């Protein structure tokens, strides 16, 4: 973990995120969003959580980005491409960013470097997931089932 890798990944990720937020064409914005998710996965790998980075790529780049692209294709007919931009939203976002940076820079307890760490392997994650976190795991399974059934009901054609 060094500064050069972190800053170069951050530049790519934030540029892709800005493109996803500001590009007028929906399809290009969706592809920039996929690039943003790859950058976020690189952050996880840099932080020593390789499994989370892999899950991020599988779930976000593999599933969520494809879902967004399909939704764009299904809802494109009849929508106007031109849209105006609300500058009040940009002002609020800049104010929130300034407030967060001010708070982060004025907290001395956050100016620490990473301690040495033994690598977190998938075996350990699996053990913890099926012992300490077995209840949350079951709840997430139930939630995913309910959400997918709900999504199916929402998009089903009415007879």
């Amino acid at each position: 973990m060094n500064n050069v890798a972190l800053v170069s990944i951050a530049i790519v990720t934030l540029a892709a995120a800005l493109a996803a937020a500001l590009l007028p064409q929906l399809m290009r914005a969706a592809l920039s969003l996929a690039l943003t998710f790859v950058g976020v996965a690189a952050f996880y790998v840099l932080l020593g959580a390789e499994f989370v980075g892999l899950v991020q790529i599988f779930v976000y780049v593999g599933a969520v980005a494809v879902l967004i692209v399909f939704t764009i294709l299904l809802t494109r007919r009849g929508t106007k491409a031109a849209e105006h931009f609300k500058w009040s939203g940009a002002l609020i976002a800049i104010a929130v960013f300034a407030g967060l940076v001010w708070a982060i820079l004025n907290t001395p307890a956050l100016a620490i470097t990473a301690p040495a760490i033994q690598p977190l392997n998938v075996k350990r994650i699996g053990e913890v997931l099926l012992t300490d976190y077995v209840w949350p795991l079951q709840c997430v399974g139930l939630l995913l089932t309910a959400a997918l059934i709900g999504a199916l009901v929402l998009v089903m054609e009415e007879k």
Partner: protein
Amino acid sequence: MTPTLQLFLIISAALFSIGLLAALSRRHAIFVLIGIEMMLAAANINFVAFWRFGPQPQEPTGVMIAIFAIAIAAAEAAVGLALVIAVYRHYRTTDIDQLNQLRG
């Protein structure tokens, strides 16, 4: 030279603000969902960063929360995009400013 925790937090704050910008200032419903996904990813980076910079050795709590948050965000994206398609079927638009039927 290794980065400090502050650098990671500032980067995730920037990602959060860009997501907030997309969610607040675009009128297309899919852009709002894209912004929400970015804000969730920024929060996840914070969880993993605080776990990595915390005292060692410890339980992988931050990693677990990030994995569960990714699963819940996937469910949220599926339902949100289904809502966008359902709204488009009824109103033939995805512009959230035109969905004002409940306005008094």
